[in-house]
């Protein structure tokens, strides 16, 4: 009874756009927590800001809605202070690969035992659609009206190149059964693990 999915749901109704792939991540995490029978009081979810970061309002675990880019170091602090806790990070592509890239690389090098889920929609969405570190070169966005000039970050090979023993995988959110399986796999891993979830922003990402 205790580890049913609804135990991991808060009373707050998600504020995401109807049809947002973040719903799949939310459900996937709740399912995986229930499946792995991790009591909700032993989980700390540290979220970044932005659309994906709002997930901390919709879960019933201990949570920190941290600052932009800082979800990973905040989570490391939690884990170091109390290693018994299951520490999960939910972050967008801007927080993980832009503002917080330095922290991600360090966490990978140190192999801290935290689980990172990156809702990678190749765009800054809550700020109404600007280029992100994973936006394709040439893409026209509000901040790059003449096309994005930079090469996008490819997270999986980047992280592997830093520490090849790390569990880092990529999944497309359209394939929800695979997404759910991988969420469980990441949570079950000993040590640092990251799942890069390719998403489409249904409001600002239609042109991508």
């Amino acid at each position, binding site marked *: 009874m205790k580890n049913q999915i609804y135990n991991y749901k808060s009373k707050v109704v998600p504020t995401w756009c109807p049809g947002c792939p973040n719903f799949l991540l939310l459900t996937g995490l709740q399912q995986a927590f229930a499946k792995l029978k991790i009591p909700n009081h032993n989980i700390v979810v540290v979220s970044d800001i932005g659309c994906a970061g709002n997930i901390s309002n919709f879960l019933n675990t201990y*949570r920190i809605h941290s600052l932009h880019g800082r979800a990973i170091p905040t989570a490391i602090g939690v884990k170091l202070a109390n290693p018994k806790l299951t520490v999960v990070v939910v972050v967008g592509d801007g927080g993980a690969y832009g503002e917080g890239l330095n922290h991600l690389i360090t966490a990978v090098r140190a192999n801290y035992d935290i689980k990172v889920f990156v809702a990678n929609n190749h765009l800054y969405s809550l700020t109404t659609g600007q280029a992100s570190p994973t936006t394709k070169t040439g893409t026209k966005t509000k901040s790059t009206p003449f096309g994005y000039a930079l090469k996008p970050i490819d997270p999986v090979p980047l992280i592997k190149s830093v520490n090849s023993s790390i569990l880092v995988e990529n999944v497309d959110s359209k394939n929800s059964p695979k997404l759910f399986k991988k969420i469980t796999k990441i949570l079950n891993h000993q040590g640092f693990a990251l799942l890069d979830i390719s998403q489409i922003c249904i409001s600002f990402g239609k042109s991508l």
Partner: protein
Amino acid sequence: MLKSNKMIKEDFSIKLAGPAGMGIKSGGQLFSKFFQSLGFYFHDYTEYPSLVRGGHNTYQATYGYQKVHAPHQKIDYFFSLKPGHCRQHQNEFHPNTLVFSDKKNPVSKGKFINLPLSQLSSQAGNPLSANIICFGIIAFLLNQDKSQATSLISKVFSKNTKTNLIAFDIGYIYAQQNLKQYQQTLKIPKQANQAKAQSSAGGRLTSFNDGNQAFAYGFLQGKGNFYAAYPMTPSSGTLHFLASRAKDYNITVVHPEDEIATASLAVGAAFAGARSAVGTSGGGFALMNETVSFCGMSEIGMLYYLVSRPGPATGMPTWTSQSDLLYAIFSGHGEFPKVVIAPGDQQESFDFANIGLNLADQLQTPIIVLSDKFIAESSASTTDLSKEKVIVNRGKILNSVTKNFKRYNWITRSGVSPRCLPGTTNGQFLANSSEHNQFGFSSDDSIVAVKMQQKRAKKLKTAKILAPKPRLFGNKQADSLIISWGSNKGIILEALKKLDNFAFLQIRTLWPLHDSIKKTIKKYKKTIIIENSQTSRLGFLLKSLFSFSPTATILKFNGRPFFPEELIKKLK
């Protein structure tokens, strides 16, 4: 000060100067440990540029029969470990200063004594042994028992004992043969034997600590168990010391990738229940500012140990300053309560580490311990801090809670709502960087926003009750009042040994300012603010909060601390 050659009166001062890499500090500390073992009080001070080899480094210390609150500017024994390091110190010499240096450099003040240090060092077989040779000379000049000095050398330099003992002997014998006319008998403090006996009890000031180490001991005794820092002079001493003790004390000490991560780690650790602190200086604190604001919003209590140095930007990394006072007080965007406390000496650095951790737990908001290079990197006689007991207060932590726990319950007089730690059944709450309701859920409701801000603001009143009160020293019936804070405390107290017509108000909590300060200030005809900054940051604060203007302001902002002699001259 040394007036005659016969007997040293109240205190005496020794200074070593030379390029970096010559063991100026380690040699100087050996002198201080020696005199401390004889029962003298001491306070030292080092100057060094930001480089590893070469340059001009100094170590100086004043030794006294009574507590020495600050080093003196005037030196009695000066040693230049390499030629060319004494002329710039001529202002620190009096007519009887013994100035020892290789080769004759024209020095217009003091008594110049040619000391062939390079020759003696090569005799000792170690070009870097000049500091120990000088130690041998001092031991002879003050007619000290050789065995006590040599046993100290064996204890301090356990690796190269033999070569150091040879160097000591060379210095001692050289002085015996050449410097006999300068010898005098040092009266050993009566309490010396007593002090030795009591040293284990920790009652007397028989320990050797700089401010950074004192803070570290306060952190350890105060059950601090998470310390994160990115190396930055002059705060790194605490990081090094705690890192070396982490295993013994079973605490976590980390050096993350940058100051932003450093502070973020500490926030996470504090949330999870650690007594959590970070250490840095102005530039690193700039990067940590977002977490100060975050702690204010999410009501996570943690401690920032801010050891200031002159800015702006990189400034003068190895020098001292009090110019970051307003920056510390107003750090972080938005309106939220915070406490800034400033230790006045090494002992208070110890006390304020634990008090700071207590305030963080009691108030659940960011707490800043504002120190500076002068306290942090100067050593002085303290009690045995490794044994000193402190009172640990963890604030309101609930061990069990019922469902729908209101972590941010706004029905509270103190502004503080009881918290629970992750792992507590039913306690699942959200620590939110966004404005939030009583459960922690994001909210931009107009009533909630006002209620939560008002709740948090109440903590400032609570802080006035809990944070260290101002202290009044000196002649309280005098007409004149000195107002100051931080590291000037010791220098002012040392100056007051020679001035009896001043009271001295040490403001220990700089934010929020205690209401009694205004009353105290009004009682005195003349008021003088003393600060180590260009624009008197405390003056700005007192003016804006109390509409108060001092009669006079004494400021110094060249990276050096005040010396007691300077203050005596200006105050007279």
